[in-house]
């Protein structure tokens, strides 16, 4: 189709490109082909851009920072800002606005981007003078991949903003592609090349490291009489690579028992092939390991009600209950129901082992999540799945890097606050420091319900204290006395020394539930700093903010 000279340029270009780059180019060109009328070529004389990031794990921030640094090198001044710090009234005045935003589990934006996200969904905002680009981070393992980025991109356009770069959706192995996106954007500023097809699909090559492991052991760490079940799971995986602070990702399987009952209720055949993601998969396997059948979203329940043509109140339900209460009238209704199901979302667990101390192994600390639904005791899918694993079972997983929760250098003091399963990464930290012979001091705060039964890894901490890998440890058991006692109370009890550690440069790590634990802990740190540094509240907040900025206050909360 192309005349020879043009063809040669294309061929020369292609010859120098990597496979990933060619795939990207493919998407890029298709975007160019479907160019929207509103899109303009980028002007050559860009002086100042805004780079706003919405981050949960720190990846977006890391990219945004790199973006800003490279812009600067190209003579472009950039305003780098976290979306939760971004003044929303500035948006309509922006000339060049780029945002890097990640997506959380159910397709939501990160908490730090929530206000911005909501702002975009208002009606009376006009952004007609804004030129923008969105880089979306996500995880293809989730059903609503990069949903927040997609929404932001669509809303900006709906409000009249002009897209100068196509939306780019990135998987967890985002680094190379993200750099390419930044490169091409910066290049476009200089070359006045037309830009911005609507969307560029990510490459499907997965460099995210997947491993096939085997269960070595699973132990319920809670002593008899405890109301909790917390499983210590050891997985053997040769050559597994991770760092302390990283998480393990996995896709839990549905219980065979439940799936068998579903198939039975539907009058279906577990071996009948169903086309899913372009492959034929036996129905049983699909329901067991790919599709979510419990606690279905209201969206799926609604679809179900449409298919079976019955009124079902908008609520979350299990497929098995739907089939029992609102049975299908003919077997042919089942296939569309299966097609309506969401994929099982992966779950992330902070790794509790150290790559140095536990070579070729990954350990997890998993609380079995039981909750009451309609007065029935129910198990969380993933924690239940994990708690049922037996020695020798196959176990597929991947490593999820957590840039925001990295170990401090060996000579630095660390303060670790991790009640409940928040203890997991600190077992990794302390084991790693033990193996390294790190010089920095370490102080661990742990809490749970009862001393006698819920002191997770008690014997290990005692050993690490004895050998000096752990310098101090304080514990709070909430239900061992009339007054509830939590880790923050222990922080207060040792406030003076804690402050000395912090002033001396200690890194502070918080892991566990976001609310109320990490909120209470941060408030307590604020209180301690206010008192001991003799600051007013806003100064103390700045102190904490600086710690965060300098990577000395790190959180892995959920």
């Amino acid at each position, binding site marked *: 189709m192309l005349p020879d000279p043009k063809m040669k340029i294309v061929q020369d270009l292609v010859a120098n490109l990597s496979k990933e780059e060619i795939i990207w180019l493919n998407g890029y060109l298709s975007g160019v082909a479907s160019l929207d009328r509103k899109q303009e070529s980028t002007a050559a004389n860009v002086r100042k851009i805004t780079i706003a990031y919405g981050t949960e794990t720190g990846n977006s921030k890391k990219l945004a920072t790199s973006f800003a640094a490279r812009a600067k090198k190209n003579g472009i001044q950039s305003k780098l800002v976290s979306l939760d710090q971004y003044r929303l009234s500035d948006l309509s005045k922006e000339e060049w606005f780029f945002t890097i935003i990640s997506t959380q589990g159910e397709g939501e934006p990160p908490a730090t981007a929530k206000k911005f996200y909501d702002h975009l969904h208002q009606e009376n905002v006009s952004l007609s003078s804004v030129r923008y680009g969105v880089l979306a981070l996500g995880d293809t393992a989730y059903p609503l991949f990069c949903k927040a980025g997609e929404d932001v991109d669509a809303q900006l356009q709906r409000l009249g903003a002009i897209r100068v770069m196509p939306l780019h959706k990135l998987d967890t192995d985002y680094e190379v592609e993200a750099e390419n996106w930044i490169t091409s954007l910066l290049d476009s500023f200089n070359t006045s090349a037309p830009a911005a097809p609507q969307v560029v699909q990510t490459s499907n090559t997965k460099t995210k490291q997947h491993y096939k492991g085997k269960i070595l052991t699973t*132990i*319920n*760490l*809670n*002593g*008899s009489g405890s109301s909790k079940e917390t499983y*210590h799971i050891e997985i053997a995986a040769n050559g597994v690579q991770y760092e302390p602070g990283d998480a393990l990702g996995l896709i839990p399987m549905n219980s065979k028992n439940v799936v068998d009952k579903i198939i039975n209720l539907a009058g279906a055949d577990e071996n009948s092939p169903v086309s899913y993601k372009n492959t034929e998969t036996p129905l049983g396997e699909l329901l067991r390991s790919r599709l979510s059948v419990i606690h279905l979203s209201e969206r799926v329940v609604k679809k179900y009600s449409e298919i079976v043509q019955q009124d079902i109140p908008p609520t979350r339900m299990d497929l098995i209950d739907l089939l029992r209460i609102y049975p299908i009238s003919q077997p042919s209704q089942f296939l569309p129901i299966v097609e309506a199901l969401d994929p099982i979302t992966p779950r992330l667990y902070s790794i509790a082992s150290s790559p140095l101390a536990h070579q070729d192994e990954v350990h997890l600390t998993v609380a079995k999540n039981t909750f009451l639904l309609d007065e029935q005791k129910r198990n969380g899918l993933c924690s239940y799945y994990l708690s049922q694993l037996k020695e020798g079972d196959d176990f597929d997983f991947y490593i999820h890097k957590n840039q925001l929760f990295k170990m401090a250098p060996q000579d630095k003091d660390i303060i670790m606050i991790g009640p409940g399963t928040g203890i997991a990464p600190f077992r990794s930290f302390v084991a790693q420091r033990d193996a390294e012979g790190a010089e920095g001091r370490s102080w661990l705060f742990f809490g749970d319900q009862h*001393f*006698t*039964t819920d*002191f*997770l*890894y*008690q*014997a*290990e*901490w*005692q050993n690490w*204290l004895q050998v000096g890998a752990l310098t101090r*440890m*304080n*514990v709070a058991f909430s239900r*061992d*006395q009339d007054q509830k006692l939590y880790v923050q109370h222990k922080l207060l009890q040792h406030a003076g020394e804690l402050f000395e550690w912090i002033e001396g440069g200690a890194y502070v790590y918080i892991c566990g539930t976001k609310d109320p634990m990490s909120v209470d802990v941060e408030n307590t740190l604020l209180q301690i700093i206010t008192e001991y540094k003799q600051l007013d509240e806003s100064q103390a907040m700045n102190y904490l903010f600086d710690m965060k900025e300098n990577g000395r206050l790190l959180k892995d909360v959920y």
Partner: protein
Amino acid sequence: MAEQKNLSVVEKIKTASDGLRGTLKESLQDELTGAVREQDHALIKFHGMYEQDDRDLREERALKKLDKLYSFMIRLRIPGGLITPQQWIAAHHIAGNYSTGVIKITTRQTIQLHGILKRDIKPTLKDFNAVTLDSIAACGDVNRNVICSSHPSQSPLHKQIHDYAGKLSEALLPKTRAFYEIWLDEEVLADKKEEIDPLYQDHYLPRKFKIGIAIPPNNDVDVFGNDLGLIAIIENESLLGFNLAIGGGLSSTHGNPSTYPRLATVIGFVPANDKLMKAVYEVLTIQRDFGNRSDRKQARLKYTIDNMGVDVFKTELERRCGFPLGKAMPYQFTERKDYYGWRQSSSGKWHYTIFVENGRVVDDENLALKTALLKVAETGLAQFRFTPNQNLILSDIDELDKNEIEGILNQFGIIEHTDNSSLMRKNSIACVAFNTCPLALAEAQRYLPTLITKIEPLLKKHSLESEEISLRMTGCPNGCGRSPLAEIGFIGTAYGRYNLYLGGDRLGERLNQKFRDNLDEQEILTTLDEVFADYSLNRSSGETLGDFAWRKYFEQQ
């Protein structure tokens, strides 16, 4: 008073302990373990506590990466085993709040609570202190709880004699204020002159020391099993004084032939006044100065005496007392038992002795004993007396109040329980053993009741069910259950295995002998079946099982 070389570790800990304080305060503050520090382990005994752990859970907890489930046994100091109903009510609630809930009556006439977590020790002791009960010197290398024949009806002089238990206990207490400082938050004295302790000095005794007071003709205290036994001598309804019996002790160690149980030797008579107090005191000082401090297995008074010779010991005692001992006065024991049921003393007061199997006061599916006793205590009409056989006497009840107490006892089936339990069961003793005693090799109190249920048909088969045969089981050879003084004695050797001892007499004046090694339950039952058959056929008239077995199996050898 030879210089002792190679002092044992415990000796060094005692001397360095600053009046038994050690690092107990620091130990209490350690959040990461339920235990106290290692060196405090020995010291906490002097405060009436043992650190223990649930041995049933050891394996499971190790797997779960949990430390052992440490807890503490707290044993009270109750000289002569007498408390008020108000004190019993307090003990009832304290047991419920901080321990397993079981109140264990011990063979030393006191009560102990098990399973108290480290953080609950202070509240427990504070609550006991509020009703003037303490646990000072209930364990440790000091004079322990002083026991005395328990039943008020034994003699019109019972109270006068019984009071010596309290007097001796007070006189022989260590002087340190450590107990009050550590557990009751008493202010630390700047001037420690008050603490100067002429008896215990800074090294206490080499080993535990037990005193028992018997009022003949009942040897319910097993007076010859004590380091120091006092036998009350009564003439013309007045207390003349006491025969002194020294060097009793029932413990031994498997496979260590230099350890052995020993009956106390009667060495003379002391009048019942200051001289008695002086003589007892000096027995302790001799043991303090001559006892073995390098080998704790050779440290009891019985070994000191056997090393010195009884005569040398007696001479030393007279020298230290400054007066000679009188010639031992005649006395006779004719029984060794608790008087179950109602009994009236010459004063007109009534007393009811309840059979408490293995001394465990608890509500179970068959008997709400603990609740019943609380109800009785709440009337305020009866005193509570613990017997050296782990039973309980509701005592000193007015004639007018007897019906009310009996009503409660009937309501809860206590009288029926006491009346209907077999004689063998009522004459049995078991120590604590598993799951808390660190020394236990085999079960005792958790197992003996079921074993007796299997022995009872054998007694019936040989028409022996009306014999008052004494049977005692201990989970190790340390003698807490006084097994060496039983007609049928069991000493645990390994889990589910026991050495069987026979030939002890019924009165506690002759030690039993090992008859069979390492029996399991079936072998126990088979052996006893044979012995009972033999006894039933071949005994002479009025011959007890103990005497028969001695004559038949041991004497000729």
